[in-house]
């Protein structure tokens, strides 16, 4: 706080009306104090987010040994690889299916909890959040065991119900299904919580007047609840798109991208190339492919939030 006290000492002529003068000095010193207090944050963002981002672009333009500049060769190389296109396909499939299901299930759960008497809501809301609070890498380990084909629970239940057992993580189709299911398990509570907060902010009078008009539950949902939640639904969808596309833990723990690279996402594929195989420039190029999607989502989120404030 030294710039502040220095400014107060320098303002000795203003002793005539000390309180008002001090207020003025404070107003003037505000900017300086503000900059000093924000400095750690700015250094953090510049040094550990902005600089690494620019550095990632630079790295992606180098050869594997990082000794020569190769232009866009890494990107061109990736675009000719079948594996890379498989990663693109999986990422889109994973993100779209997981986000849509999380949004639907989250809405159903929020509506159901909202219907209950207030005292019961707290318990169910709390229990529902457990998947989202457990460290994802560790709950994925639990799912890994659930999917184990011979000794574990899932196939046992399937056989009990008369279905054939599946080799969950070894079959390409079921491996994709499995990683998406874990993401839905993990992310649905987040949707539920934001929707529930949104539901609580809808004025009760709207429902009361619609009840007088004789609207049924489906009509109330369509004409009051959903329009009132529109903005929250949009922001949550976009936010979840970013987080889901960037998923790493689930795939790394369950399949490591297999079988035959069928479950790799941008993050896990970048890790495989950049860290595990030591081709840092190629790995950097893979993760940069995520950026356009993140940037577009971020733009719309920001617009959505600005709209709901104004």
């Amino acid at each position, binding site marked *: *706080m030294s710039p502040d006290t220095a400014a107060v000492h320098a303002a000795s002529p203003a002793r005539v009306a000390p309180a008002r003068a001090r207020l003025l000095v404070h107003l003037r010193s505000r900017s300086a104090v*503000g900059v000093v207090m924000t400095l750690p*944050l700015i250094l953090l963002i510049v040094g550990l987010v902005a600089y*690494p981002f620019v550095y990632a672009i630079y790295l992606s333009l180098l050869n594997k040994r990082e000794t020569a500049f190769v232009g866009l060769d890494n990107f061109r190389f990736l675009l000719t690889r079948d594996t890379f296109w498989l990663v693109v396909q999986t990422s889109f499939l994973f993100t779209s299916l997981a986000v849509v299901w999380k949004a639907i*299930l989250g809405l159903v759960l929020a509506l159901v909890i909202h219907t209950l008497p207030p005292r019961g809501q707290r318990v169910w809301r709390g229990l529902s959040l*457990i998947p989202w609070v457990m460290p994802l890498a*560790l709950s994925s380990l639990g799912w890994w065991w659930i999917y184990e084909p*011979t000794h574990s*629970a899932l196939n046992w239940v399937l056989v009990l119900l008369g279905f054939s057992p599946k080799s969950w993580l070894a079959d390409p189709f079921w491996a994709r299904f499995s990683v998406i299911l874990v993401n839905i398990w993990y992310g649905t509570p987040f949707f539920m919580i934001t929707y529930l907060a949104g539901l609580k902010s809808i004025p009760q009078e709207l429902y009361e007047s619609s009840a007088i008009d004789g609207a049924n539950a489906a009509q109330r949902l369509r004409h009051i609840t959903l329009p009132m939640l529109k903005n929250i639904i949009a922001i949550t969808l976009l936010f979840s798109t970013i987080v889901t596309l960037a998923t790493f833990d689930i795939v790394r723990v369950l399949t490591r991208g297999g079988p035959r690279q069928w479950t790799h996402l941008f993050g896990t594929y970048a890790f495989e190339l950049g860290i595990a195989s030591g081709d840092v420039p190629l*790995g950097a190029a893979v993760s940069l492919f995520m950026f356009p999607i993140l940037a577009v989502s971020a733009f719309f989120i920001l617009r959505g939030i600005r709209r709901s404030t104004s």
Partner: protein
Amino acid sequence: MIGSPRARRAAALLVCYGIIGAFMVFFLFPPYWMAVTSLKTNQEIESLEGIPLIIQKGATLKHYVDLFTKTDFLVYLKNSVLVTIPTVLISMVISVMAAYALSRLGFVGAGLIGTGVFLVYLVPDSLLFIPLFKVIGGLGLLNSKWSLLVVYPTAIVPFCTWLLIGYFASIPRELDEAALVDGANHFQMLVRIFLPVAVPGLIAATIFAFTVSWSGFLYPLAFIFSSSEQVLTAGTVTSLIKGDVYHWGGLMAGALLASLPPVLLYAFLMDYYISGLTAGSTKA
């Protein structure tokens, strides 16, 4: 009386509880299955007879005892604590100062920084871990747990700042002016007026910081290779899996114990946590 409002209400509640029941099975089966497995004997886990969903041949704490006596679990636990405490402290100090400045000391560019903070919050760890791997290498921190102290605040501070700006903004401006006229400086104002009022926000931000630091997996996996430096998440996943035969009991015991601190923290402070979580999407 079928069709009366009360009967319809009762039927609707019944449907609601049915749906909630289905969700609870889906949400809580994995932790339940982990707990059951961690308490079974190895013979029972490997047996193909009986009902696997319950413990039939007697519960045992052997997997938990082994975890502490035969594995590096305690080392990981110590490292996780050593990383998480300073990460939370540093992140909170940076966030509180920045949030105060950005919400009250309207200086040139404050609005722009506010927007920037929000955008940085949206940057996921899987976008920048490769250049950060090089940055950490440049700092000489590869294969050290302290590397996490450098990278975790970038994931924590933007959200916490954003959250606290919301709380600080709700404090009436008349309070500041009164304090300034009384001769308080900005530091005194922050400590005596803002922090006490923003306690719910501070708690929510602290829980968030703790959870991010405790649950982080990609950074320790990428930056740390020795068991002696590893933290709980990456340590449990990478080194408790040994050989071709997975000892599921020990693995589940480790995963469950390591998951406990964030779950307990949130169980006691759930309401703060939720108000903090939803602040961004509804208040903002």
